[in-house]
């Protein structure tokens, strides 16, 4: 698979987005669309599960950056769960862990909103 698959799970207060595959300049708009939908629906308690994400470039990181201000202004957040080492290294290189809370387990990330 060369693209990205974006899935969404709505819990009561929290929405989990699952990204699978490769997030680059070609596929980042898919993720952007999913986040925009959540913002439009005012579902701003977001967990992004990256367990099956194999790759991220700055275009994918830019999507996180593009929405975080809006989402936090609305009282929500983007928390990240189950990130693979390879993807974490890119986040880390750019200092993103300062800006985003990263959790080992999805349930732990969801628990932060309760």
């Amino acid at each position: 698979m060369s693209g990205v698959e974006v899935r969404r799970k709505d819990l009561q207060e929290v929405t989990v987005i699952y990204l699978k595959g490769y997030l680059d300049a070609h596929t980042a708009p898919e993720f952007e669309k999913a986040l925009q939908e959540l913002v439009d629906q005012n579902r701003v308690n977001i967990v992004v599960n990256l367990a099956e994400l194999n790759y991220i470039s700055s275009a994918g990181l830019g999507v996180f950056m593009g929405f975080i201000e809006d989402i936090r202004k609305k009282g929500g957040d983007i928390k990240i769960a189950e990130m693979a080492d390879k993807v974490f290294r890119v986040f880390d290189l750019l200092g993103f862990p300062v800006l985003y809370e990263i959790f080992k387990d999805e349930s732990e990330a969801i628990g932060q909103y309760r």
Partner: protein
Amino acid sequence: MARKTENYHLRIPSETANLQVIRNFVSDVAKSVGFENQDIGKIELAVDEACTNVIEHAYHQDSKKDIDVAVKIDFDKFTVVITDHGKGFKPEDVDIPDMNRYLAELRVGGLGIYLMKHLMDEVEYRTQPGVSNEVRMVKYLIRKDNKKKQSA
């Protein structure tokens, strides 16, 4: 061991749908010469960032244009040269973000060049105005037999 030079070349239409093909090309070459997974990941990301810049800024998403990706292996030196014939830029005009400020201000975009500089050992731009633009990036391979020699 004899000094060995190898050249690989990919010419591909300038569109983001081809980024995966470009990444596979460079990572296959890097793997074949013995880079470890972590370094292969760095090379493929740096090349992706450079090509994304060409697609979006030099060619403005015009897929009738081609990107040239050339890899040269010269013993322990892995050089990748990405060439385009689009709109050039002056490398000295490119603002390398200060990441602390960048994150504090929640800025968007412009991370590609920062990544390239931090992922590769050398990054150099060569621009011939109106002719071509080149990004030349180097990664050195630390070979196991080299490590032994150094510690002996």
